[in-house]
């Protein structure tokens, strides 16, 4: 079976509007978590957010998109998508081929327009807004499809915070099963009153920059991002930069509670175990884990338990959510891109704001930028509804 490899990457987060800019911030330990400027909510000045540093009109201008109905989510997705297809040198003709698939992911979709959606959904006016077709979870995927007339299988996942890990997994499987020759896979979410109020009602938003795996962690910070990877078969990628191999993937359900992980962390444990099995690797082969690490009370402890269950000697681990915040449906793809950068540049980016280990598990994340021999990197993503996914990426 030929290998599925990554030939293009694109990303936009609070720490940069390109792959290069994101890497620079990661190397320098520069977090994107702070005061939001563009996102309008009662919580704007109260809670820290990891906001993309462009207003929505600025993004539209930058991307030369003038059509009505395009949301911030659509635009952010397009920004990362364009970088990825340019990087992989995919022409317009190739994108229109029936062999080119597009797999997106989002939890918020067009709901970033909370007030407009309120008016439309409650039919408060005589006429609808320009966004009537922009609200569904898949709206950003449809937007990208229509921009480039993508001719193959097109799909969108919503498995909450593991969504875009599943889109990459599905993309790799489409290639392995011969249902696509190349896949652009990833995800997007932007800041929305809906998610901010939702996570706030669950009392898991921190009023300070998140402290991953720290005993005194107070919760997560919400962020916004889009990231896409271009996947191809190794033999089709001759002459292209090959960043990494998608080596394995695992998916499970924790089957415990709609919004928290079980004390034994079966879901996280099983998805990591299945990813290793699919990759044909042993736990000892993993050199680094980019953990889900949200800094909620529940996640960091249960994820630690799962990692300790699976790994006799725990590999080095960290979580990049201390830079980008939790970008929900985009998180799996954002962190896959960072895992690809880990491998491509043979380097590890530190977790920020860590002081003291969690009493019960005593795990300490990487806290300094280091260069390191890395063959295999694991990336975890867990979500509401018990959805857990793990990806294993390999050096080429």
């Amino acid at each position: 079976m030929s290998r599925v490899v990554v030939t293009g990457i694109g990303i936009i987060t609070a720490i940069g509007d390109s792959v290069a800019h994101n890497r620079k911030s990661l190397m320098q330990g520069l977090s994107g978590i702070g005061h939001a400027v563009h996102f309008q909510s009662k919580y704007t000045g109260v809670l820290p957010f990891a906001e993309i540093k462009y207003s929505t009109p600025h993004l539209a201008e930058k991307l030369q998109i003038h059509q009505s109905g395009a949301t911030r989510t659509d635009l952010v997705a397009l920004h990362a998508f364009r970088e990825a297809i340019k990087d992989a040198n995919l022409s317009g003709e190739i994108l229109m081929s029936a062999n080119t698939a597009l797999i997106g992911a989002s939890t918020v979709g067009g709901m970033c327009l909370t007030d407009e959606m309120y008016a439309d959904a409650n039919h408060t006016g005589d006429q609808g807004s320009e966004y009537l077709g922009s609200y569904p979870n898949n709206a950003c995927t449809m937007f990208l499809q229509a921009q480039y007339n993508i001719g193959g299988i097109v799909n969108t996942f919503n498995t909450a915070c593991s969504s875009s890990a599943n889109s990459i997994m599905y993309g790799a499987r489409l290639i392995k099963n011969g249902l696509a020759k190349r896949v652009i896979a990833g995800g997007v979410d932007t800041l929305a009153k809906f998610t901010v109020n939702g996570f706030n009602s669950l009392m898991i938003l921190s009023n300070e920059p998140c402290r991953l795996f720290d005993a005194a962690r107070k919760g997560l910070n919400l962020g916004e991002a889009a990231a896409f990877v271009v996947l191809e078969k190794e033999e089709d990628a001759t002459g292209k930069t090959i960043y990494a191999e998608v080596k394995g993937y695992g998916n499970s359900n924790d089957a415990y509670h709609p919004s928290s992980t079980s004390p034994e962390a079966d879901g996280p444990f099983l998805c990591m175990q299945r990813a290793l099995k699919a990759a044909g690797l042993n736990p000892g082969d993993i050199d680094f884990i980019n953990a889900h690490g949200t800094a909620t009370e529940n996640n960091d402890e249960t994820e630690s338990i799962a990692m300790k269950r699976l790994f006799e000697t725990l590999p080095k681990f960290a979580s990049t959510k201390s830079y980008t915040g939790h970008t929900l449906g985009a998180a799996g793809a954002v962190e896959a891109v960072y895992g690809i950068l880990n491998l491509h540049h043979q380097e590890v980016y530190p977790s920020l704001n860590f002081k003291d280990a969690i009493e019960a598990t005593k795990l300490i994340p990487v806290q300094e930028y280091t260069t390191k021999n890395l063959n295999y990197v694991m990336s975890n993503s867990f979500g509401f509804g018990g959805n857990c996914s793990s990806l294993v990426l390999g050096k080429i």
Partner: protein
Amino acid sequence: MYIHQHICISPQHTSGNIDLDAVEASKEGKLVALEPKLEGVPPGMIRRMSKAVRMGLGAGLPVVTNNEVDGIIIGTANGGMEDCIKFLNQIIDYDEGLLTPGNFVQSTPNAIAGQLSLITKNKNYNATHVHLGLAFENALIDAKMLLEENAEAKYLIGGVDEISTYNYNIDYLAGWYNKTIESKKLYEAALPATIAGEGAAMFLVSKRPENAIAKIAAIETVHTTDLGVVQKRFEKFLSQQKVDPSDTIFISGENGDSRLNHFYNACEELVDDLPTVRYKHLTGEYPTVSSFAVWLAGYAVEHQSLPSHFYKNDIRSRQVEKVLLYNNYHGSQHSFIFITKPK
């Protein structure tokens, strides 16, 4: 991929004592699903569930309760939209004040697959495809790949969507629905709109042909608004299947919307020697309605006939060995599916 069990909750009598002759009509442009009593779920849980989750459990639980499946794969455009907007309304109405998280937690589209896993303690593969009019088709593609990867496995796949006040309002404002259209005269309405519907259809699938109801032989999807592209793709799809006028029926997703008729007519013309069957006078329109069509195809090969109200033309097959399906959603998401009797 073979269907071994199929359960359908719809606005018609499709679950329990199935009666496709007794047709329930639409009211105010909506066909609302008839819900069976939900067994095996604590009443306290049921009270907090949206209709989408209840329908998903109603159709899915009977399949997974007696079968430890290797995965649960759901296609749904909206999941529990009602909860989603209830929470959104609270945000605005209480000016982002202190809110209760109940509706927020229930609002995620993956709640259906999540609840099915939770109730049956199923920790296997679990996915929710939300790609609107092709969400169910992607669930099929997902299962098809999983069966290639794991030949001994069996999966629950399903399509679920509800009419919520809110998605109805949004699609109504966008011009997709008209409250004056009646299901009885759906195909004669000649208006640029249709009626809304909802339902859940669930399938147990595996690679084993023994005792199967039907085989899902092929599936193809495409995004386009160009009629020529749809015709070309359908012709190619037809050329790859063994379609025989003596034993094949064509199930069309025609929904009366005058803006979409040219797609359905063009595909129908390409198979004009087949009986054409329509069903949206029973279901209304919703993003995952093709899951009802797959259930109907299974029913047709199982029972070898359908009541006459389904038939559009006068052609009849001697027997129903194969079913060809075409559906499109909002004129941009198209799917072709080929279903046969298991050999």
